[in-house]
């Protein structure tokens, strides 16, 4: 008999079990004995507490803790925007919203998409600022310092969006194919925010430099048509933003918000 045969035959001894009647009667006897010594049904709170501490014990090992940490960081950077998107400029969570937007921008690889997203965020900030300024409970005599700061933030967001929009047009993105080397393409590096902080939050961008984009090969006719269309759209959006700024300066925050919504629609 080989070891394998022997083991197989030993395995078959697994079929030996106690009688079902013995199992049942024995269970009842044991339950009554332990009941006499204090066994009881646990409350929901006790069950929850036990489940929680058991989970914490299970994940206490470094490998699990690292895995959960990475999961939290990754999901936070991917989904935190949704969680904090409702935070307004005068909320304590507004900073968290700005940070989550930055994290989200860092996950977008395509420069054109990143620019569009940045513009969208800037316009959303501006809209939120105008809705806060439009609130009579906030915009009071006692609060003029904060109102002034929010106005400044509003103007910054509009300027930022305006300059970003001009870089969304293809004449900035595309160079005609030439024998010149690709190093002649713009190598401007875009600096993501954090440099301007104020009480109402962080501004996302320094409003001047475009994100580096690769050379794109296209025919000259197609290039002209696309350039024309984008320039028109860019001009229109720019002028809408100017109007929004004007309305804000005239303290007509409702109309400013409407103009910003219009501009957002054009960017989509």
């Amino acid at each position, binding site marked *: *008999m080989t*070891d394998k*045969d*022997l*083991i197989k*035959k*030993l*395995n*078959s*001894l*697994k*079929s*030996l*079990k*106690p*009688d079902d009647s*013995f*199992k049942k009667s*024995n*269970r009842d*006897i*044991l*339950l009554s*004995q*332990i*009941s006499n*010594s*204090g*066994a*009881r*049904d*646990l409350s929901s709170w*006790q*069950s929850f507490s*036990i*489940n929680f*501490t*058991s*989970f914490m*014990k*299970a*994940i206490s090992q470094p*490998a*699990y803790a690292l*895995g959960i940490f990475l999961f939290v960081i990754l999901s936070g950077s991917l989904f935190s925007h949704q969680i904090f998107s409702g935070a307004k400029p005068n909320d304590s969570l507004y900073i968290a919203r700005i940070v989550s937007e930055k994290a989200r921008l860092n996950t977008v690889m395509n420069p054109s998409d990143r620019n569009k997203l940045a513009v969208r965020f800037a316009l959303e900030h501006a809209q939120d600022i105008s809705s806060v300024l439009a609130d009579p409970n906030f915009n009071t005599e006692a609060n003029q310092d904060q109102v002034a700061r929010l106005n400044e933030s509003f103007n910054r967001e509009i300027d930022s969006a305006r300059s970003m929009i001009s870089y969304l047009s293809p004449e900035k993105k595309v160079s005609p194919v030439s024998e010149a080397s690709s190093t002649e393409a713009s190598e401007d590096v875009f600096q993501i925010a954090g440099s301007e902080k104020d009480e109402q939050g962080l501004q996302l961008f320094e409003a001047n430099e475009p994100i580096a984009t690769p050379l794109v090969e296209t025919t000259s006719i197609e290039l002209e048509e696309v350039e024309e269309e984008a320039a028109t759209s860019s001009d229109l959006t720019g002028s809408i933003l100017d109007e929004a700024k004007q309305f804000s300066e005239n303290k007509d925050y409702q109309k400013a918000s409407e103009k910003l919504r219009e501009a957002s629609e054009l960017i989509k």
Partner: protein
Amino acid sequence: MAGNLIKKFKNSQSLKRLKNQDRDAFTKAYDDNIDDIYRFVYFKIGSREEANDLTSTVFLKTWSHIQTNSLESSKTLRALLYKVARTTIIDYYRESGRKITASLDDEENKIDIADESSFDFNEKMDEASDIALIKGKLPLLKEEYREVIIMRFINDLTLEEIADISGKKKGTVRVLLHRALSALKELVKEDDRL
């Protein structure tokens, strides 16, 4: 990794619930482990009726141990049950003044088969007799050989679990298993020669 996490969670949860005197946790522990513990006890002592009594004692003692002791050294409930079963059997040997050394063919110390109907009678005759032979030879093995064979090949415990229960290192358990199998094979061969 997720499977291990769930296993660790369930282990910790069952021990904590028992520590809090949860009746349902005891019922679950009993239902999940009664077959294995019974088999372990039965193959160690060789008598159905005594195995019934000792198995009940094991569960009661385990309950009592959980209530009165810290669970820091207990990795799993299953390991704890086996540890209690081992000590209970040692106490039984001490009280009864004997250790089981009988074989299936020994009329004075006959080993009862607890539930013959659980065996498949469609097995070939020679395979059935082989199994009966092995069952008969198990009691003739050294105590620690018999124990590791029961835990590993009959009750499917892992080497880590056996090491935890017996207080030995995993490598030692592996060596012990190899020697136990060789010893059992020798006993079976002796019978073939006869």
